[in-house]
């Protein structure tokens, strides 16, 4: 008997699983079109490796990720690539993303497959490559590329490999039915993963409300060292962190990953996909999806091709359109509502609930929080949901973060029990989003500041270097001058012959000095108002006026630019400030010159009379 631990909190919502377990897993007919989003995994979107108009075979790779993390996308059936376009994809926002539209040709013709006969003879990397090439990413929710997950960091040896068969969310039975009907495939895939990771313990956790699955799995693991752990039914026991706590008694450190404590969780569907990839060479082109809810007449599970539009799936299950009120992708606790039934099934789609208004009624209006603390009683992460709610609502995100907002797994247990029907999880999502935005903006501002400071340092350095060079040049010039003088003196001392030349040089020198002195005097003193000069200046008043207006206009422009730059806290404020100061001086000088000229013009007629 496996030792089990309990996790704090948790709830027991109505399970509503029996509706979809009455029938075996069925297959749906081929839809008219398959819509294959290029990004069904965490990482970079895949890029098309076939062209529009190409005929592709079933299982053929049609898109792949060459740069960065990601897995390829394969054709779920043979057909023609009709287009690549933006289509609505499964996402809470209802956004559109790039999708390949495949028109099936009805032949369902496989491409050449390369199964591995005996994986144990191969290198582990080769098997991991086979898993990657099969396009497998986690099928439980997030869609993390499985081959990367199966390569934990070197210093994180996985001691416990957990296969998550808890399936604690109400309504969903995809894993349950898979274990019942395909237990051998599940175990085969699990064995491959165990061979890759070499853990000392391998355990399948299943909630005790699935006796058929437990029996089938027990039979399938007979003779192996794989444990079957029957865990008490309590939502969210299938949460990764909770299941790890139940099965190992350990907690995943905040902000860390299970591998930090030597644990890894894998999903039932992923195990099946890994088995198929290795033993049959088949890529991930279909999965088991639960279709349930009171708006479908024949709820159950379907082995469905990736890319099948949801409405096709619903029609197969007998949708009563007039009764449909809410379409939930995923479970009733953590799933999200769809805006459109045209979105396709992707690798992470596990359940579609077509609910009637009576089945999932709209919550009553939000009432004030009475601090009853029931949310804290049921929180599996031992948070204080009501405090998080107060702070999120008040915009005091720092305090919310201090109370470990980011440890919230958004399981919805708090909202489920809230007597005031406060949409608590929505408040936490909002707060997390705001904090992430703030962080991003802070990062941006920090980078801008760093850039600015680096630029300032560079300019200063350049200025210094310039100054240095100028000094060196001056020094060199002075040395050259001194050398020349010394030569001249030597020449003078040499004899009579050079006397004339020396006298000439002296004369030139004197003339130069006179000229220099005159120039200096000219700049320091105002030029004496001689009549001839005034006469020359007279037509210049107009020119000076023009100069002044130009300078003023330029100053205004500069000032405007400076104000704008200041408002935006741009990098060039300092530069603009200098420019404005310079222009200001220019305007002043122009004004002075103009005033002077006008004064002279006024005096001139008097003196000429």
């Amino acid at each position: 008997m496996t030792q089990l631990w309990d996790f704090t909190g948790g709830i027991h919502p109505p399970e509503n699983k029996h509706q979809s377990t009455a029938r075996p897993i069925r297959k749906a007919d081929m839809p008219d079109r398959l819509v294959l989003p290029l990004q069904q995994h965490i990482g970079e979107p895949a890029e098309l490796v076939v062209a529009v108009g190409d005929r592709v075979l079933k299982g053929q790779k049609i898109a792949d990720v060459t740069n960065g993390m990601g897995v390829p996308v394969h054709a779920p059936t043979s057909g023609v690539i009709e287009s690549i376009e933006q289509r609505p994809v499964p996402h809470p926002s209802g956004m559109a993303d790039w999708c390949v539209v495949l028109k099936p040709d009805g032949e369902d013709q496989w491409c050449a497959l390369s199964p591995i006969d005996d994986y144990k003879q191969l290198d582990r990397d080769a098997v991991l490559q086979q898993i990657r090439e099969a396009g497998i990413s986690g099928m439980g929710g997030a869609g993390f590329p499985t081959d990367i997950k199966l390569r934990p960091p070197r210093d994180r040896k996985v001691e416990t490999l957990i296969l998550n068969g808890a399936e604690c969310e109400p309504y969903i039975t995809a894993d349950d039915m898979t274990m019942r009907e395909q237990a051998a495939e599940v175990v085969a895939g699990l064995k491959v993963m165990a061979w890759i990771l070499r853990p000392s313990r391998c355990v399948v956790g299943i909630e005790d409300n699935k006796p058929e699955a437990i029996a089938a799995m027990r039979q399938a693991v007979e003779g192996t060292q794989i444990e079957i752990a029957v865990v008490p039914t309590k939502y969210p026991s299938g949460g990764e962190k909770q299941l790890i706590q139940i099965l190992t008694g350990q907690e995943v450190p905040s902000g860390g990953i299970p591998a930090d404590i030597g644990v890894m969780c894998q999903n039932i569907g992923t195990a099946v996909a890994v088995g198929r990839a290795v033993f049959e060479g088949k890529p991930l082109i279909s999965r088991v999806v639960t279709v349930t809810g009171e708006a479908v007449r024949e709820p159950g599970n379907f082995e469905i091709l990736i890319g099948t539009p949801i409405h096709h799936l619903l029609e197969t299950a007998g949708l009563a359109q007039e009764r449909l009120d809410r379409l939930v992708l995923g479970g009733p606790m953590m799933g999200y509502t769809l805006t459109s039934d045209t979105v396709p099934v992707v690798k992470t789609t596990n359940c579609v609930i077509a609910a009637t208004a009576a089945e999932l009624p709209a919550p009553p209006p939000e009432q004030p929080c009475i601090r009853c603390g029931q949310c804290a009683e049921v929180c599996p992460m031992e948070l204080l949901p009501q405090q998080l709610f107060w702070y999120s609502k008040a915009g005091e995100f720092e305090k919310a973060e201090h109370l470990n907002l980011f440890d919230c797994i958004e399981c919805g247990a708090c909202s489920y029990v809230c007597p005031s029907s406060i949409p608590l999880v929505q408040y936490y999502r909002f707060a997390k989003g705001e904090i992430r935005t703030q962080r991003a903006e802070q990062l941006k501002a920090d980078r801008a500041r760093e850039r600015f400071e680096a630029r300032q340092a560079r300019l200063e350095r350049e200025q210094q270097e310039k100054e240095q060079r100028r000094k060196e040049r001056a020094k060199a010039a002075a040395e050259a001058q001194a050398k020349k003088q010394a030569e001249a003196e030597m020449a003078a001392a040499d004899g009579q012959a050079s006397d004339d030349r020396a006298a000439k040089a002296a004369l030139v020198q004197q003339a130069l000095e006179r000229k220099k002195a005159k120039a200096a005097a000219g700049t320091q003193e105002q030029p004496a108002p001689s009549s001839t000069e005034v006469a020359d200046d007279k037509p210049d008043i107009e020119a000076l006026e023009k100069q002044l207006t130009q300078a003023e206009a330029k100053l205004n422009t500069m000032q405007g630019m400076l104000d704008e730059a200041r408002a935006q806290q741009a990098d060039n404020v300092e530069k603009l400030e200098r420019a404005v100061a310079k222009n200001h001086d220019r305007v002043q000088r122009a004004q002075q010159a103009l005033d002077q000229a006008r004064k002279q013009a006024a005096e001139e007629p008097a003196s000429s009379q």
Partner: protein
Amino acid sequence: MALVQQSSPHAHRARPTSRIMLWVILAALPGLLAQTLFFGWGNLINVVWCIALAMGAEAAFLKLRGKPVAFFLRDNTAAVTGLLLGLSLPQFTPWWVSGIAVVSAIIVAKQLYGGLGSNPFNPAMVGYALALISFPVAMTTNWAEAATLWGGAPGFGETLAKIFAGGQTAVDGWTMATPLDEYKHKIASHTSAEVLRHPTFGELIARGWEWVNLAFLAGGVLLIALRIITWHIPVAFLAGIAAMSLAFGSNADQYAPLQLHLLAGGTMLGAFFIATDPVSAATSHQGKLIYGAGIGILVYLIRSWGNYPDAVAFSVLLMNFAVPFIDHYTPPRTYGHHKARRGVPGRSGG
């Protein structure tokens, strides 16, 4: 096709605030029944009067605040406030004294702070403390003598007349000092055995009071079983009183004995129905233990060395003051963290 757009979770458990409050009211009924059986009609009349006035005051003020009246009245919280006051006031409290208590509880202690969920103090206890300080005579001399309905308690009409037309004076033969009051004042000059001879103590512990307290205890256990309250506050409350009594009051010739503390006065009503008001209580389990124990200790301190024979109202209000502080330092340890993050952001880690 207009599909409903809603954020998760899509399933909800239907036990709204109104039903929780209804359960609190139902759980208090055994206590009210015991009060009526052992002390006459006074409490029942008080309860009806206080609930009616509380609902009226709430409705009037909600209208004044421009809030949806029916929506908030339906949450039954005003009724609970009225109920708690009716249960804790002396049986023959004049109608206007209880009226002032109720109106100040609803308007000052609740609505002026922002209504349901925003009041830092227990509204019923604010009303009670206000009446006790303002009208000490009316609030201490109107306790009914323990007399069963079938054994000499004043009739319904007489009680009604006393409450609504009787003025502030006590009627001899109807009223009597409470056991805690009697013990406190006589023990200075008598031995315990002499004091306990007084008829207010009866044959068991405190005539009538013991049954009332046991009935409230039963109602409280029901609330815990229904998971409407947790055990932390009541148990800590009672443990606080017991610990103080064992530590300081073991000499019965000096201080009231433990059984009197637990089964006389408003102990059980306070422990299970008043201190557990979630709005004004501490939140985490650890915080609730500190909060409840604090009330218990204060109850004992005031009863033994203060000026008042009973002390639930003041103790609850004093600990209400401490709630933000307690909450600050008693957050639980979150999954995946080594220890709890106490205090304010940036000043302490975890």
